[in-house]
C-alpha cells in the first residue's frame, strides 16, 4: 500500500478559486481511481494555501490486476484498413485475432490476457489529463504558454510510493522538488512523502491544511475576545476568505481612534470587512467597538504589521469621517433641485424627473397601503439626494443607507428615514426584504418607474444580456408583492406609471409596454416559483389564466397545490378534472365545440343531475369567497366532486347516439372544467 502525493506550486491563487480547485481536483482524482478500479482511502483530502494545491491519498495498491478481457474490434465486413488500425493500436499480431458473433453482427476480437499493471504507470499516464480537467471558475494564461490555470503555475511535485512520478503537464515537468519559500522562490527541496513535507512546513510555521488554519485563527480570536469581553459577527464567507489568503496565520488585535465611532457603523464595517478583510468587533450590547482583528501572514516581530494596518484604517476612516461631517449637514431638501443636473438615464430624464414620477406613484400606492401621503411623498423627494454625496461616491454599496443616515441626522420622520435606507431592497433573490409599508411603497415605486422607463425606451434585457439588471429589478418587485402579501393592482400601476411619464412629455407606446412588461414580470414570477421548488407544470398552470394583478394569488395557489399534489385532495382534484378534460379534448378535436353551458332539461338520469348540482355548489362556493380565499379549502371543495364524477363515468355513456344528448353531456363536462378554472387551469398539470 502506497501514498500518492502531489503538490502544484503557483503564484497566489485567490481564495474562492482555491476552494473551487480543491473540489475539482478531489472529484477528478476520485473518478480516476473509481474508473480504473483502484482501491484507495476514500477519506482523502485536498489541501491548499495561496501558493500550494496539495493532494494526498494513501492506502493505494502498487499494482492492480486486470482480468482477461475480450477486446472488440471492427465488424468483419468493415474495410481492411479498420482491422489494420485495430491491430496496430492494440499492438498485437494478426494470429491473435478471432471472429465472434454478437447481437449486432460478426466482429473481430482478441483476448487480452490477464495482467498486472503498476499504479505508478497509470498515474504517470493520466495525471496530466486529470489536472487538465480542473474546471476553473476563472483562469488565465501567462508568458507564451497555452496553459490555463488560476494563476501562473510554477512547479509540480508528484510522488507515488516515495518515488517521483514523471509526466509533463503542458510546459512543466513533474519532479520530487518544490520551492520552499513562496516569496523569492529561491530554496528548493526534495520531498519523498507527505508526512515529511507537512512536518517541514509546520516547523516553518506554515500550515498546509486549511481546516487547521481556520481552527487556529478561530481559537486565537476566541481567546482574545473572551479576555476582552468582545464579540464578533458570524461571517463565514469572510473567515473562509481569510483562511485562504494566509499560510501562517497570526491574529493581531488592532484598534482605531474611538472618535471614528461617531460615523454610522455600516460605513465602518464596510471599510473593515470588504475593503480590508478585517474582522470588526462588538461589545456585549452589539455596539461596534474600535477594536478589530487583522489576520497577518507573518509574525509581527517588530510591530510593523499592527502599526501599518492601524495607519491604513485611520487613513480610510478619516476620509470617511471627513465626508460624513461634510455631507450630513448638507440640507437634503435644498439639494433636491440639484438632482436636475444628474441624468438618471439617457432618454428617461434626470433624477429630478425620476423622483417626481416616484412621488406620484408612491402617493397612489399609499392609498392602497393606507399610509400617510405626506410622508411617502417626502421620502420620494429626498431619497436620491445621497447619490450626490461624497460618501456614496466612496461607498456605492451603501447608497440609500447613507441617505437614511443623513435624513435621521436632519430630523426626518423615523419611517421616512427607514424608507430611504431600504429603497433599494430587496436587491434580487437572496437579499433582505423591507417589511415596513413606507419602505415597501418607496421600493415598489422606484422599481416600477425604472421598469416602465426601460421598457419604454426599448432596453429590455435579451436572453444573454441584461446590463442594467432589469431582471433583478423585476424579481425584486415580485418578492415585494408576494412575500409581503402586498395587495396592489399592478396593471393599473403600470398604466399609471406610463401616464406619469407621458405627463413629462415621454411618448411611450403604452399598449406595448403593458404587454411586454406584463409578460416579463410573469416570467420572473415563474422563475421565482421555480426557486421555491414548485413543480414546473404547476408553475405553468398558475400563470396560465392568472395575470399581473394576481401575482400573489398565483403564488399562493401554486404553493398550496404543490404541497398537496401527492395528497388525497390534490390527486382527486386532478383526477376528476382530467377524466372530464380528456374526453372533451378528444371530442373537440373531431367536431363538437362546447361553451360550458349544459341544459338540465336534456339530462336523462340522476348521475347527470347530481354532477350538475355539485358543479353548481362549487360555483356558489367560488362566488361566495372574497379576498380571503383559503386555497386548501378550495382544493378540498374541488376534490369533493370525486364521487359525482366517478358515478357519472361509471354509469353514463357520453357518446350517446343522439347528438344533442351527447353535446349536452360534453357541455356538462366543460362546465366542470371551467368551474375548476376558478382555482386555476389544470390542463397543464401532468397527472
Amino acid at each position, binding site marked *: 500500500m502506497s501514498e500518492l502525493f502531489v503538490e502544484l506550486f503557483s*503564484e*497566489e491563487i*485567490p*481564495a474562492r*478559486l482555491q476552494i473551487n480547485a480543491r473540489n475539482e481536483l478531489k472529484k477528478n482524482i476520485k473518478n480516476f481511481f473509481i474508473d480504473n478500479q483502484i482501491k484507495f482511502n476514500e477519506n482523502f483530502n485536498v489541501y491548499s494555501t*495561496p501558493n500550494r494545491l496539495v493532494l494526498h491519498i494513501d492506502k493505494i495498491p502498487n499494482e492492480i490486476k486486470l482480468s482477461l478481457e475480450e477486446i472488440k474490434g471492427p465488424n468483419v465486413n468493415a474495410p481492411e484498413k479498420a482491422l489494420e488500425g485495430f491491430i496496430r493500436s492494440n499492438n498485437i499480431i494478426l494470429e491473435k485475432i478471432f471472429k465472434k458473433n454478437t447481437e449486432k453482427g460478426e466482429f473481430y476480437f482478441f483476448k487480452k490476457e490477464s495482467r498486472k499493471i503498476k499504479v505508478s504507470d497509470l498515474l504517470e499516464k493520466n495525471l496530466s489529463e486529470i489536472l487538465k480537467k480542473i474546471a476553473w471558475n*476563472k483562469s*488565465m*494564461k*501567462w*508568458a*507564451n504558454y497555452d496553459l490555463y490555470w488560476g*494563476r*501562473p503555475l*510554477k512547479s509540480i511535485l508528484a510522488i507515488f510510493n516515495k518515488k517521483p512520478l514523471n509526466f509533463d503537464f503542458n510546459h512543466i515537468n513533474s519532479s520530487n522538488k518544490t520551492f520552499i519559500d513562496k*516569496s*523569492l*522562490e*529561491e530554496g528548493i527541496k526534495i520531498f519523498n512523502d507527505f508526512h515529511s513535507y507537512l512536518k517541514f512546513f509546520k516547523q516553518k510555521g506554515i500550515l498546509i491544511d486549511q481546516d487547521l488554519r481556520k481552527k487556529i485563527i478561530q481559537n486565537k480570536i476566541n481567546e482574545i475576545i473572551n479576555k476582552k469581553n468582545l464579540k464578533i459577527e458570524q461571517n463565514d464567507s469572510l473567515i473562509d476568505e481569510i483562511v485562504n*489568503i494566509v499560510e501562517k496565520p497570526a491574529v493581531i488585535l488592532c484598534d482605531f481612534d474611538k472618535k471614528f465611532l461617531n460615523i454610522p457603523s455600516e460605513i465602518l464595517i464596510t471599510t473593515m470587512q470588504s475593503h*480590508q*478583510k*478585517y474582522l470588526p468587533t462588538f461589545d456585549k450590547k452589539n455596539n461596534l467597538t474600535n477594536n478589530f482583528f*487583522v489576520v*497577518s*501572514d*507573518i509574525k*509581527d*516581530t*517588530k510591530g*510593523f*504589521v499592527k*502599526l*501599518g*494596518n492601524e*495607519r*491604513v*484604517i*485611520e*487613513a480610510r476612516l*478619516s*476620509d470617511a469621517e*471627513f465626508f460624513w461631517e461634510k455631507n450630513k449637514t448638507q440640507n437634503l431638501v435644498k439639494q433636491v433641485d440639484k438632482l436636475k*443636473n*444628474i*441624468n*438618471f*438615464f*439617457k432618454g428617461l430624464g*434626470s*433624477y429630478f424627473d425620476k423622483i417626481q414620477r416616484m412621488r406620484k406613484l408612491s402617493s397612489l400606492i399609499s392609498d392602497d397601503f393606507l399610509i400617510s401621503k405626506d410622508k411617502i411623498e417626502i421620502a420620494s423627494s429626498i431619497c436620491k439626494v445621497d447619490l*450626490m454625496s461624497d460618501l456614496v*461616491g466612496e461607498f456605492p454599496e451603501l447608497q440609500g443607507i447613507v441617505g437614511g443616515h443623513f435624513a435621521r441626522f436632519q430630523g426626518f420622520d423615523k419611517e421616512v428615514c427607514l424608507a430611504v435606507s431600504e429603497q433599494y431592497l430587496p436587491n434580487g433573490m437572496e437579499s433582505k426584504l423591507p417589511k415596513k409599508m413606507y419602505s415597501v411603497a418607496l421600493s415598489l415605486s422606484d422599481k416600477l418607474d425604472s421598469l416602465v422607463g426601460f421598457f419604454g425606451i426599448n432596453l429590455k434585457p435579451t436572453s444573454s444580456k441584461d*446590463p*442594467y439588471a432589469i431582471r433583478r429589478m423585476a424579481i425584486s418587485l415580485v418578492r415585494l408583492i408576494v412575500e409581503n402579501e402586498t395587495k396592489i393592482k399592478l396593471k393599473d400601476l403600470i398604466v399609471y406609471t406610463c401616464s406619469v411619464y407621458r405627463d413629462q412629455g415621454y411618448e411611450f407606446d403604452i399598449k406595448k409596454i403593458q404587454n411586454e412588461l406584463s409578460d416579463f414580470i410573469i416570467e420572473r414570477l415563474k422563475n421565482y416559483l421555480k426557486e421555491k421548488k414548485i413543480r414546473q407544470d404547476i408553475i405553468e398552470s398558475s400563470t396560465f389564466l392568472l395575470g399581473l394583478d394576481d401575482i400573489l394569488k398565483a403564488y399562493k395557489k401554486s404553493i398550496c397545490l404543490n404541497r398537496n399534489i401527492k395528497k388525497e385532495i390534490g390527486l382527486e382534484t386532478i383526477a376528476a378534472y382530467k377524466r372530464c378534460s380528456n374526453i372533451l379534448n378528444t371530442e373537440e378535436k373531431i367536431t363538437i365545440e362546447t361553451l360550458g353551458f349544459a341544459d338540465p332539461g336534456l339530462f336523462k338520469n340522476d348521475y347527470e343531475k347530481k354532477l350538475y348540482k355539485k358543479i353548481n355548489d362549487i360555483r356558489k362556493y367560488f362566488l361566495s369567497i372574497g379576498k380571503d380565499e383559503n386555497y386548501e379549502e378550495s382544493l378540498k371543495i374541488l376534490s369533493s366532486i370525486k364521487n359525482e364524477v366517478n358515478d357519472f363515468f361509471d354509469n353514463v355513456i357520453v357518446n350517446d347516439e343522439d347528438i344533442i344528448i351527447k353535446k349536452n353531456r360534453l357541455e356538462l363536462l366543460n362546465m366542470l372544467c371551467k368551474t375548476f378554472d376558478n382555482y386555476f387551469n389544470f390542463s397543464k398539470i401532468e397527472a
Partner: protein
Amino acid sequence: MVSKIKKKTLSFQDTIFNLQKYWSKKGCVILQPYDLEVGAGTFHPATTLRSLGPKPWKTAYVQPSRRPTDGRYGDNPNRLQHYYQFQVLIKPSPKEIKKMYLNSLSSIGINHEEHDIRFVEDDWESPTLGAAGLGWEVWCDGMEVTQFTYFQQMAGVECKPVSVEITYGLERLCMFIQNKKSVFDLIWNDEGITYKDVFHQSEKEFSAYNFEYANTDNLFKIFEMLEEETKLLVEKKISLPAYDQCLKCSHVFNILDARGVISVAQRAEYIARIRELTKSIGKVWIESQS
C-alpha cells in the same frame, strides 16, 4: 559598523530613482512620462499598444495620472486629482517576476521578511481600453501599494504573449516608507522640499477647474470633435496619432464626469464610445506590427 548608520529617509524623488535604476538593470527601456493627460500609466501607448502584438518589450516609466473626480482641493490627506504612478510592463511575463517585484521593494527599503506582503485578488478591467487582466493588488501591512496584472485582453484583442504590468502608486508607497499620514507631508528631496510645496496649489486650482469651472458645453463639443478626428485617423491607418486623440477624448470625459453632468447610465454609453475607438486603433496598430 554598517548597521549603526542611521537609515536616511528615502525621499520621493529617490524612490523614483531607485525604481528606475532597479528596472533599468532588469533590462527595461526607461521611458519618460507620456505628454498627454491620462488616467493611469496603463494608458501610455508604451503599455496599451506595445502590449499588443508578438514583439517582446520591457519598459518602466513614471506616469503622472489625472483623475479629476479624486480632487479634494488639497484638503484631503490621501486624495489627489494628479498623482504619480511608476509603471513596469514586460512582455512576455517572466517566470521570476514575483521575485523581481519583491526585490524592487527592497530597493526602496521595504523588506518582505518584516512586512505582511499580500497578493490580494484583484482582477483588473478597463472598460475604456477594452482591456482585462488577472492579478492582484499588493498589500503591505494592509496598505495597497501596487497593482500586479497579467494582461489577458487589450483593445478587445486577446494578448499573446501575455504581458505583466506592475503599477506602483508612488505617493502611497512613499507615505508608507516615510511614515507620513498626509501625502502633502512627503519629503520630496534631501533639501526638505515637500509634496505640498510642489503640488498643493495645483491640487486646489485643478479641483476648482474640474468641479466648478470647466466649460461643460464646450467639453461636450470637444469630445465629439476628438471622436470624429480619431475615427478619421483610424481610417488613414495611423494608429499612434489616432490613439492620442482617443486619450484626449478619455480625459475630456473624465472632466465631464467630475463636473457631475454625466449620469451613471450615460457613463456607460460614453465609455462604450471610447472603447470602440480604442478597439479600432488596436486593430490598426496590430496590423502595423507584423
